């Protein structure tokens, strides 16, 4: 029937035009999206360990699987080795820890002795103005720098005070830092010996 044919055709034409248009848009934006992601990651890596260059540990790296186990219940995302002048100066960990509203992506830098060189929050869904204080109130994250090498979960709780009114967001960050401590003690400290 020509009538229904016309109907189907018009929908089809719309779909084809739309799909083509979107494919083109995607082609145009995709590289930039990737670039933005890379940049964001790069920025946060530099923030936790200024001046270093980073090398991602691949899936096959035995440390990755071990770190994943040590990180639990915090999610392990990626491990980077940090180099400065060709020398390994430490690691950066990318972790996903539970905040108040979904996971917070944290990047935590550790030097070879196991001290925290810096923490940056790559992304989070915390309530703007409340939970986001973990980022906007710099003193909170800076507390991580006071942790002694080889710190434990209890040390994190004892050293880092939570932001009042944003306890659960603070806990998200604290749990991430504690996980980094565990990963250092259980996984990375061994590698440090080898690296020397």
């Amino acid at each position, binding site marked *: 029937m020509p009538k229904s044919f016309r109907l189907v055709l018009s929908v089809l034409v719309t779909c084809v035009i739309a799909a083509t248009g979107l494919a083109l848009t995607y082609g145009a934006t995709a590289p930039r999206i990737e670039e933005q992601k890379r940049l964001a990651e790069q920025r946060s890596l530099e923030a936790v360990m200024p001046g270093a260059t980073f090398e991602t540990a691949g899936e096959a790296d035995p440390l990755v699987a071990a770190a994943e186990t040590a990180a639990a219940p915090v999610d392990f995302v990626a491990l980077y080795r940090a180099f400065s002048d060709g020398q390994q100066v430490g690691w950066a960990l990318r972790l996903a820890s539970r905040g108040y509203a979904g996971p917070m992506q944290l990047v935590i830098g550790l030097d070879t002795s196991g001290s925290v060189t810096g923490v940056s929050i790559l992304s989070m869904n915390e309530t703007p103005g409340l939970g986001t204080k973990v980022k906007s109130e710099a003193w909170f994250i800076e507390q991580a720098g006071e942790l002694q090498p080889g710190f434990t979960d209890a040390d994190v709780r004892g050293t880092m005070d939570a932001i*009042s009114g944003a306890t659960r967001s603070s806990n998200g960050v604290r749990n991430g830092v504690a996980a980094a401590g565990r990963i250092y003690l259980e996984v990375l400290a061994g590698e440090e010996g080898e690296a020397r």
Partner: protein
Amino acid sequence: MSDTAQHVTVGPSPHITSPATCTGIMLWVVAALVPVSVWAVVSMGWVAAQLLVVCIGTALATEAAWSALAKRPGTLTDGSALVTGLLLALSLPPRTPWWMAMVGALVAIGLGKMIFGGLGHNLFNPALVGRAFVTLSWAGVLAGGQWFKTLEASGAGLDAITGATRLGIAAADRVASGGYGFDLAAQYRPLLWQNLEGSLGEISAALLIAGGLLLIVKGIIDWRIPAGYIGTVALISWAFGSDPVFHVLAGGVMIGAFFMATDYVSSPMSKTGRLVYGIGCGLFNGLGRFVGSMPEATTYAILFMNGLAPLIDRMTRPKVFGVVKTRA
């Protein structure tokens, strides 16, 4: 003949009424709360008195102002604003800043009650609306420690625990180590008689129980709500392997079960409904303590069940005499 007719008035039947009045009921509630309030002032000092005065004063003023603005007859005399102000004060920690207490009372009466059309029309317990507003808005100021500390001077053997409530410490310990850092059974006495942490109304569980029983005996509140509430909290504490007595005495369970959840307007009407509602309050309060992130869940448990009250009412309508139950 005609002179007798003169002082006779007509009116619809019934021509006699029970002695119960709204104001009378409210005053009984106030009376049941007086011992706790007085004991709180005696134990905690003038900060407690100041809080009581600010809350009650603001509650009354808000009610009067709203009635005047809305050009409705004043309802100050029914005593409900007094009860709301008093309950709000009892649900706040003694060192709550005065302006915060004022905002709480303003919100309780304004947002919790008057905006819905005044007494009898509010859907949620006004005092709890005020308390939730204050605690959520200024969690930092309230929980930051400065308002809880400083009471150790009065020395009731509590030096070990300052800066947070027993419940808070119990919760934190449980999360950290799966156990408790202090002996729960040793807390019965202070919780029953003189507990200087937490809010004004938590000063003495014993006085709250006495007040609650008075209201039950006077037929003002239905025993089903507190019984269902407290019983369920105890049961849940036991199920989670904790001490039921401690959990029933600590925090807001007593004041919540006897005085907050039993608020007529925001609780169900039928007996079955009230039992269900009481159990619901206890369930969410108890679960909130063990699986939630806040040490105290009384406020939200009761507010949540307030929200469910109309639904419960709907499902527990009395059976009409002579009507065979059919699927409605």
